[in-house]
């Protein structure tokens, strides 16, 4: 398989992750495009070792972190909600979480927890792969997952279980 074919095969997965990170379809495609351009340029000088897809994810994550950082420093906020294509949200059924509620909860997660949780859940990568992509130790992956899941439980008010309701 040619290098460009390998990259192409990863594009749907990159887009999915980028959409979840940016919550804005256009912005997600900008991010993926930048990632692909860098990968193609970088290839001319240094050949990546290991699977191409993990390497692409690593580039994408670093680009995303850079852009978050610059936004913070400018004190600007891009309107996440305004441009996000609203997913068709079915009425919450018994035992399921309302998607709108989950969407809002996700937005309130710290960046590091969100990037970790989404990578694991949406892309189905192993914890070792996630650690390599995010450039963090595997123990940090696990602690971020733990904190993310606990935070989502609080943020979605999923204290439907009687024992949790009393906490409020």
């Amino acid at each position, binding site marked *: 398989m040619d290098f460009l074919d390998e990259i*192409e095969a990863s594009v749907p997965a990159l887009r999915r992750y980028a*959409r979840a990170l940016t919550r804005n379809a256009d912005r997600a495609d900008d991010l993926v*495009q930048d990632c692909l351009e860098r990968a193609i340029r970088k290839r001319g000088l240094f050949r990546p070792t290991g699977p191409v897809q993990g390497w692409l994810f690593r580039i994408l994550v670093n680009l995303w*972190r*850079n852009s978050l*950082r610059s936004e913070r420093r400018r004190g600007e906020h891009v309107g996440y909600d305004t441009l996000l294509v609203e997913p068709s949200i079915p009425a919450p059924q018994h035992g399921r979480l309302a998607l709108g509620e989950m969407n809002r909860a996700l937005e309130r997660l710290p960046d590091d927890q969100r990037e970790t949780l*989404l990578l694991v859940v949406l892309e189905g990568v192993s914890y070792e792969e996630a650690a390599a992509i995010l450039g963090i130790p595997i123990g940090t992956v696990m602690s971020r997952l733990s904190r993310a899941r606990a935070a989502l439980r609080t943020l979605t008010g999923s204290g439907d279980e009687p*024992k949790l309701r009393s906490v409020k």
Partner: protein
Amino acid sequence: MTPNPAPITEDDLHAYVDRLLSPARAAEVETWLSQRPDKAAEIALWQRQNEALTALFPPVTPELIPDRLKPRQLAARPRGVTLNWQQMAVAAVVILAIGTGAGWTLRELDHPPESDGLIAAAVTAHALYVKENRHAVEVAATDRDHLVSWLSNRVARPITPPDLAPEGFDLVGGRLLPAAYDEEENGPAAQLMYQNAANDRVTVYITAAIPNEKNAYEFSSRENLDAFYWSNDRITCTVVGSLPDAEMKAVAKKIYTQLTWRPDGTDSAKS
């Protein structure tokens, strides 16, 4: 089932929810959960969280990839034509980084890769000093022996300035700078500056190796500056410049070759 399975850990529970366990181990987790309704309720909630996230961000159809995300079209396109949202954002980072000085670190992030901070510092230092005329370097190339021994001592690695004469670049000199690996760890960095007949300048930013870091390579482009970063078990090196693509690659390759092939500090300036 084995009578005494390995204890179920928190990590097992996450892996169970994320479907990363073998069927045998997953069955052990289920048995364990069946005796702990409180924990089972929490795990069920985690599963519902996963379902909700998957529903919010469904897989992307491969057939509907726009042209601008097709690698073959991107590879065929001349670079530098478009400036998208992302590139403008990166440019803003550099401008801000320059404003806050070379000790700029990435504090908002939990644990950014050390290379991020080093590349940012190298780019910042480049942007700052290439504009200088009389004070571009602390020690000029005319005092080469002193430059080499001083920077080698401070960085604690033998630093032999690469010979870029075949590429048309002469050593201007060098200076000592702070290098921020991360919030806790700081160290010295050596910056070497080169210049060609057209007054294009390239800088090479060298630090001692990051502990426990394996060989790494990274390319990034910030504002109009290209940065090639690599690390091995002895040093990290970031080459920064704004040359045409082919020339930048040639220079970066030459520097990489010389610094990695002769890490013992022997004279590499033979051509």
